[in-house]
């Protein structure tokens, strides 16, 4: 019987089995940001512990950093305190920190891959649930809490239970106007927001084979929204070629050796899985959420479903969602008016996302009254986009072009919804209050769909826009 990538990575990184039945697992790469780390550093200090592997930890600032101006001191005193705290913590423990001055700052899950820190066969941890993103490279990447951040700082290890593996195959090809974001929204819609609890999702099939690394990252990023703490794609040529030449990737003969090891970590053809799911990629439509969790999603051409269509124990959440969103069963989601459009986040804030959104932005102008933001995921993404003139495209169409950060994905910086505003968003969570207003409403969709919604002032099928595009 062959082994899955998860089996192989687990075996190579297992330090020992603990009495509790958990594994003491070595963590090859630890990523740190300003929100979930200060308490962990404080715990380390209080307990008189050190950081034995400081060169395996990298830090950045993303959640609290403003996207209009990042001049210090930051206008928000609390944000400035958090910024100073991560600077002094990293200095004290000898950890490399990517601040805006470094030129490498960005959302933690954008910079890890683009710097070549994220590599196949690694174990990765970060005090952030979207650490699952790094699974796109065939890494085993966990989101952890602050006490576990402390554990990794102090020991470079986690005490953790090995998950089961579910193979999620998406066969065939995606139709035009259908993106990686639609694939993962469709997977979550089918398997449910708790369907993946206790599982790692191994994504496979022709659709994943054909995807770029950035697209794979979008899918793996939202594994956690389906309850799966991690998701991964087996490393292949696409993975290897993406890594070639990246700052922290090996070079020369070392790269050749790395390539052999990376690809050897992929699941064996006869690997066994706990279970398998297969989805026909041709059946996936541009998808939009209508409710208050990412599983409450429908095709843009569908209507808000009736509560009766859900399992009995889901109905209370569905009723709650209708009320919160101000939507009724049977109502078409297309045509839903929006107030704000947000393109960015660790799900969809990479160059290819901005390119797809820009294609749509070229076809119109942001509807008067709609506030539209484009926030690159990192300084490197911003530089690359500006080199192509994408910032000009967006500005000409009435979008604001911002500095890199988490921005309106969550409410820890000045970019927030107000009141009951409705936001078409390329981020990953449509939870109540997620975008900063306790009554603010979020519709998740692909960046191209967000751009189309910004122009239309309402949810619209991006395929209608693209059909107008000159070939």
């Amino acid at each position, binding site marked *: 019987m062959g082994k899955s990538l998860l089996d192989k990575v687990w075996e*190579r990184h*297992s*330090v*020992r089995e*603990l*009495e*509790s039945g958990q594994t*003491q697992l*070595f963590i*090859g790469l630890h990523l740190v940001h300003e*929100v*979930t780390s*200060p308490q962990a550093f*404080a*715990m380390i200090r*209080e307990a008189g*512990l050190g950081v034995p*592997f400081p060169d395996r930890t990298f830090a950045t600032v993303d959640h609290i950093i403003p996207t209009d101006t990042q001049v210090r001191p930051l206008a*928000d005193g*609390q944000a400035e*305190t*958090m910024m100073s705290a991560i600077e002094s913590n990293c200095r004290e423990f000898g950890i490399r920190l990517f601040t805006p001055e470094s030129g490498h700052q960005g959302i933690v899950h954008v910079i890890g891959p683009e710097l070549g820190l994220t590599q196949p066969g690694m174990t990765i941890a970060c005090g*952030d649930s979207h650490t699952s993103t790094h699974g796109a490279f065939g890494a085993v990447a966990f*989101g952890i*809490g*602050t*006490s*576990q951040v402390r*554990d990794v700082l102090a*020991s*470079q*290890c986690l*005490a*953790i*239970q090995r998950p089961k593996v579910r193979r999620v195959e998406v066969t065939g090809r995606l139709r035009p106007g259908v993106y990686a974001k639609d694939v993962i929204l469709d997977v979550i819609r089918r398997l449910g927001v*708790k369907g993946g*609890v*206790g599982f790692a999702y191994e994504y496979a099939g022709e659709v994943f084979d054909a995807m770029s690394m950035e697209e794979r990252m979008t899918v793996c990023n939202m594994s956690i929204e389906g*309850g799966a*703490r991690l998701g991964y794609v087996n490393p292949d040529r696409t993975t290897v070629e993406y890594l070639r030449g990246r700052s922290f990737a090996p070079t020369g003969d*070392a790269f050749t*050796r*790395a390539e052999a*090891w990376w690809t050897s970590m992929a699941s064996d053809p006869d690997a066994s899985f706990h279970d398998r799911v297969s989805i026909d990629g041709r059946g996936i439509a541009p998808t939009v959420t209508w409710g208050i*969790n990412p599983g409450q999603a429908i095709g843009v051409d569908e209507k808000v479903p009736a509560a009766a269509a859900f399992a009995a*124990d*889901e109905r209370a*959440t569905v009723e709650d969602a209708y009320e919160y969103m101000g939507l009724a069963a049977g109502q078409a989601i297309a045509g839903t008016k929006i107030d704000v459009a947000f393109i960015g986040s660790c799900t969809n804030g990479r160059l290819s996302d901005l390119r797809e959104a820009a294609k749509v932005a070229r076809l119109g102008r942001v509807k008067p009254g709609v506030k539209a933001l484009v926030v690159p995921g990192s300084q490197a993404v911003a530089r690359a986009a500006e080199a192509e003139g994408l910032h000009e495209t967006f500005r000409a169409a009435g979008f604001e072009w911002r500095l890199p950060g988490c921005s309106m994905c*969550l*409410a*820890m910086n000045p970019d927030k919804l107000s*009141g009951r505003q409705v936001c078409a968003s390329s981020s990953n*969570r449509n*939870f*109540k*209050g*997620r975008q*900063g207003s*306790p*009554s603010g409403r979020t519709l998740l969709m692909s960046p191209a769909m967000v751009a189309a919604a910004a122009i239309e002032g309402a949810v619209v099928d991006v395929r209608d826009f693209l059909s107008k595009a000159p070939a």
Partner: protein
Amino acid sequence: MTDQAKKSALLPVTRVSGRPIPLPGNDIDTDRIIPARFMTAITFDGLGELAFRDARFGADGKPLDHPMNDPRFRAKGPRVAIVNKNFGCGSSREHAPQAMWRWGVQAIVGESFADIFFGNCVAMGIPCVTASEADVASLLRAVEADPSQDLVVDLDAMTATRGGTSVPVSMPEGARTQLLRGTWDATRILVDALPKVRETADRLPYVGGFAR
């Protein structure tokens, strides 16, 4: 010193007794437990009264209808929360269980928990035990009818007991062992094996930059 450090490692958690607090609903995410705008701080202090802030208070600051505002459930002291399915989904923020703990919650009985939330609770010494849908429903009903009786979670017997009635509960064996033996604060145990950690690291080709 943080409360967590004061609680000091190697404290076995075998039995938690507290006033029940019902927090019904499926898929209650950690943004709802503690909205991100309250996380711009470098300590967990003061999070207790901010737990479930937007579910408890309207935009105008007026209290809403929520069990945590209900005078019947506001008695001080340790508490045991009762929840439904997939509690604590979403963001990995430990601020969520930290806020609940600071509000007095020392154990949670529910139908199911999200992975990261569950792990965060174990690392804080908070047992999250699961009971059947029917048992959780009857617990919620009983507690509504009479909030005054304590709910006792017993990790030895694996029961949740209120008055004379017990329901069976379960929990992954690993987490249960950690709590019972007081090894839930894993740091020391992990650090003890540092020589073996280094051996494991040295065997990984990427740690040496694929030099060989």
